[in-house]
């Protein structure tokens, strides 16, 4: 029996003339980590705000933890944790106090909060900074504190909007490691990102969003298998216009994508294709064979790259 924590059917959000989210449907199971992948402006944040029971859908049906956000907003939010895109910490107050003060919004007794803050600081690897003011922390530390704060009510679902945007690689990996740990503890994770490596690393299942709609759903592996080839051959030619090579390369690949600075050939065996090209005297200035990624899925589905 599948335990669904969230069901969305034909969910829409409109602001005056603009349709930010256009009739999206999806379900999320307890314990899975579910991702929304898409470029900025795809409708991810509007979707997050609806499934955080903060903003009301304009139309469609939404059930969160078996409850209706139109009528049970406070109760739903009491069981969710939300990590917003921008940190909303009190910079002038101490790290520990940020946790304890936020916990009072959930009416958690002060003695419980003291213990929980100590645990969460250890989890966020901030125990030694407990009494420092938040403004003294690095970007990665603030992010981890925001996540710790979102866990103060022991949420069943943790919703993270672009959790690692703006972090350096080391801080990102540290943060991912914390999220894996939560997942192992059974917390359902809902993540938006415009980084395909983040989606591949963290998400069991994801939807690809573009222009407010869902254009594909599946596991990262399924999406790649379904919408791309096994390998990608990336080529650069000594030319002002890669577009000129499109027709000549087309017979060698299942699909050709011309980007401003390079050409992508979608093939099953990149090295074989490269040998064939050399045999035909189509010699690139540089070449590179790699596995297909969600970036390629996105390019296939929308004709655009994820990060401009």
């Amino acid at each position, binding site marked *: 029996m599948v335990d669904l924590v969230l069901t969305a059917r034909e969910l829409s959000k409109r602001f005056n003339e603009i349709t930010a989210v256009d009739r999206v449907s999806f379900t999320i199971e307890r314990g899975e980590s579910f991702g929304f992948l898409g470029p900025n402006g795809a409708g991810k944040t509007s979707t997050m705000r609806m499934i955080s029971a903060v903003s009301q859908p304009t139309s469609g049906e939404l059930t969160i933890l078996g409850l209706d956000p139109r009528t049970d907003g406070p109760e739903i*939010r*009491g069981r969710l944790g939300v990590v*917003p895109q*921008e940190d*909303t910490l009190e910079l002038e107050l101490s790290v520990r106090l940020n946790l304890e003060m936020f916990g*009072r*919004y959930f009416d958690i007794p002060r003695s419980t909060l003291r213990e929980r803050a100590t645990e969460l600081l250890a989890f966020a690897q901030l125990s030694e900074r407990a009494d420092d003011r938040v403004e003294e922390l690095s970007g990665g530390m603030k992010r981890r504190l925001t996540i710790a704060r979102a866990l103060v009510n022991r949420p069943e679902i943790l919703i993270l909007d672009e959790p690692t945007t703006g972090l350096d690689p080391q801080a990102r990996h540290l943060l991912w490691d914390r999220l894996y740990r939560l997942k192992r503890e059974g917390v359902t994770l809902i993540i938006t990102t415009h980084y395909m490596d983040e989606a591949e690393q963290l998400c069991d299942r994801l939807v690809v969003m573009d222009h407010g709609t869902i254009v594909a759903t599946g596991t990262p592996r399924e999406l790649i298998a379904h919408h791309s080839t096994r390998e990608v051959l990336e080529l650069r030619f000594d030319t002002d216009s890669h577009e000129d090579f499109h027709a000549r390369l087309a017979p060698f690949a299942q699909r050709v994508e011309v980007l401003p600075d390079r050409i992508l050939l979608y093939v099953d065996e990149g090295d074989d294709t490269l040998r064939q090209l050399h045999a035909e005297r189509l010699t690139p200035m540089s070449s590179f064979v790699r596995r297909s990624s969600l970036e390629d899925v996105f390019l296939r589905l929308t004709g655009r790259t994820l990060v401009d």
Partner: protein
Amino acid sequence: MSVSDDVGLGWPRWRRSWWYHATYYAQTWRGSVASTVLFPIFYLVALGVGVGHLVAKHHGLVDGQTYLHFIAPSLLATTTMQLGESESLWPVLAAVKWVRSYHAAVASPLEPRDILVGKLSWVTTRAFGTGVVYTIVIAAFGGLQSWWGLTLPLIGVLITLAFAAPFVAYAAAVQSDASFVAIYRFAIIPMFLFSATFYPVSAYPGYLRPLVQFVPLYHGVALARSAAFGHWPLLATVGHLTVLGSMSVVGFLWGRWSLQRRLVD
């Protein structure tokens, strides 16, 4: 994982927002307490004793009061007005735009109206505290002539609310603080100077007097004087209470609307 103990819907939710503000203040209160106590003493010494000396020499009493006793209640009125302004404009814009602490709050069980009620109840809590300090200082200068003087802190609460409610609503609706300095220079300062604060309304030529009654602070000053002197002209008192009460109610309804729009829609 048990969560039922964390949902906690029993405690009125706005009190959690009040508590948040109170905790924040407890971390940063030291500077403001010194100025709350010292400012009225400086003011009453400089204007009440200093200028009052000149007034006594040339004019005698003002509306039957010494100059110090005449201006002491208006001091409470102007201060509580400025509290309503300073606690509402920048702090609220910070909470919805820069620090975004209200956005964090609406991700918890709190609703926008809980945040509004929590904010206004906290600002009026501070107004009451300030009112108590000022009432003690005024009493120490001999400025209370009636037991009604004990209602001065409540008058202060009403004045603060009458200004804080619309200012919170306004700050929650704007995108930048560009207009705040203008509000201070062209609304707060003129009100401070011209609301019959330092002289009776009879000092104005007859045609200007009705105009003064459009100034919100005038009603606060008049109520504070009534309380200090124990003199409540019925019709005027009802008028003053109606003006300040309406500002509070309209400001509250506007604030509910603008916070809802800013935080949730």
